[in-house]
């Protein structure tokens, strides 16, 4: 009698299992791959478009206040002027915190009764941008060429040099796709004279320490 019962239970169990595993799933419960692939593509596209649209990619222009020191600085004392500008662009890989690159030009100009003076720095920057919504903090190292040109009544010379230094900047959103920005940079520059005449650079006063304090507006590119 017991054997019969066992057999009966075994047969019922087999039937239940057979029923469960021989039947395929309901088609309504399984989404076809091509529909999912469309959704994946759409999601990917939306993500990329959102990322591209939101990427921090700006043109900036602003005022630059330089604090100059170093061996060459005393020779430039007579050339202080309010005509100092900075402009350039910065690009991060996404709207979120990400790596940052950029270029910047600094232009210091003086025109007075003693002549004219130009100091121009062309620099590239590599750094990291931290999105602190609504503020963005950019930090990095900027390096490039520096050209110094003095055309005075007593001396005239041109120096070509290299400039390098760390910097940090803050961008604050004040309108859609518009920012107010502040930047501070500590840079060192070394020059060689391009003139054969005797001048401060050729005499050994060939370096400058430049602290740039900048502020201005930035606009989305």
């Amino acid at each position, binding site marked *: 009698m017991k054997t019969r019962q066992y057999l009966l239970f075994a047969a019922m169990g087999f039937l239940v299992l057979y029923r469960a595993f021989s039947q395929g799933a309901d*088609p309504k419960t399984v989404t076809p791959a091509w529909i999912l692939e469309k959704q994946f593509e759409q999601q990917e596209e939306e993500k990329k478009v959102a990322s591209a649209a939101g990427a921090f990619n700006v043109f900036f222009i602003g005022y630059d206040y330089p604090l100059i020191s170093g061996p060459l600085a005393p020779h430039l004392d007579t050339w202080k002027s309010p005509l100092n500008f900075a402009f350039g662009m910065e690009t991060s890989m996404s709207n979120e915190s990400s790596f940052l690159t950029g270029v910047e030009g600094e232009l210091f100009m003086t025109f007075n009764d003693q002549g004219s003076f130009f100091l121009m720095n062309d620099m590239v920057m590599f750094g990291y941008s931290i999105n602190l919504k609504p503020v963005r903090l950019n930090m990095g190292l900027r390096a490039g060429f520096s050209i110094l040109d003095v055309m005075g009544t007593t001396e005239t010379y041109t120096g070509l040099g290299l400039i390098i230094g760390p910097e940090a900047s803050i961008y604050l959103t004040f309108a859609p796709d518009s920012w107010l920005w502040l930047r501070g940079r500590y840079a060192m520059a070394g020059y060689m004279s391009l003139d054969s005449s005797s001048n401060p650079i050729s005499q050994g006063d060939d370096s400058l320490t430049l602290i740039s304090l900048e502020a201005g507006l930035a606009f989305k590119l």
Partner: protein
Amino acid sequence: MKYSGILLPFCMAILVAGCASAPPPATLEAPVPKIDIWPKIYSDESYLSTFASTWSEDEAVGAIKNLQNSMVEFNANLPLSELSVDPYGMRARWSWIENGTFQKSAGIVIPFDMVTSMLLEHYPALEKDYKWGLLVYITGGSPVSLRMPTRDMAERLGKAVTVLAKARAAKLSMPNPRFGAALGALSEAQAQAAGILPTGGIIISWIFRESPAEKAGFSPQDIITGIGGKPVRKTDDLFSALDTAAAEGATEIKISGIRRSYRTEGKTNVEIFVPLTFTLAIDQTGGAK
């Protein structure tokens, strides 16, 4: 100072070039090319229609003539300037002006005895007004595609061509109305991906709208492996089993298949193949043709 005239513009130029060539924002990456072994999914929709009617040949010819001002050739998208229809064929022309004065024209011919098949088409993605159409397959020639503003017009044209093609003893091969899908043999790659033999099933290329297959939940790219407990190795196996079941008075039949899908595992989507069981309603008035 003698160099400054050159160096200043040079440095400015470097800066401007640097600005111009600065890295762009995160741009769209090119999609990774992949070899797609599965049937392409079309945005066009084919509707299941037998184009059955009780029209006479004269009525069919008249129906086509009445549609002259309501149809355009698929690509030309121009009204027909000429239409000539008789029980043996349909000839249409359209013309346009190029470069102001030079008149060009083109045309189509549908010899009714050479019609092999027809599809009632809907083109939802088409940015033109005439979104309904009839695709007419002809022996030894390219299919002719005519577009019309409404489904009713496209169906009327289909009915008329069917009447005249049948009258000319054309070898018509219309979709099986008991199923309603375009089917094909499995390729080696498809079979290997699904883990079955190439003779282990047939694959669906597309599903006709409003068909029993669509109502049963079939999808393009599904693989049919069996019907009523018997294996399906070719399309005839499916259709003959359907006809047999219909002849026996069955109202529905179980069809087993495999569907390609995806399962999400963490951050990745893994391709999977899921066995399915479909319940296909059998329409007693239909049948293989």
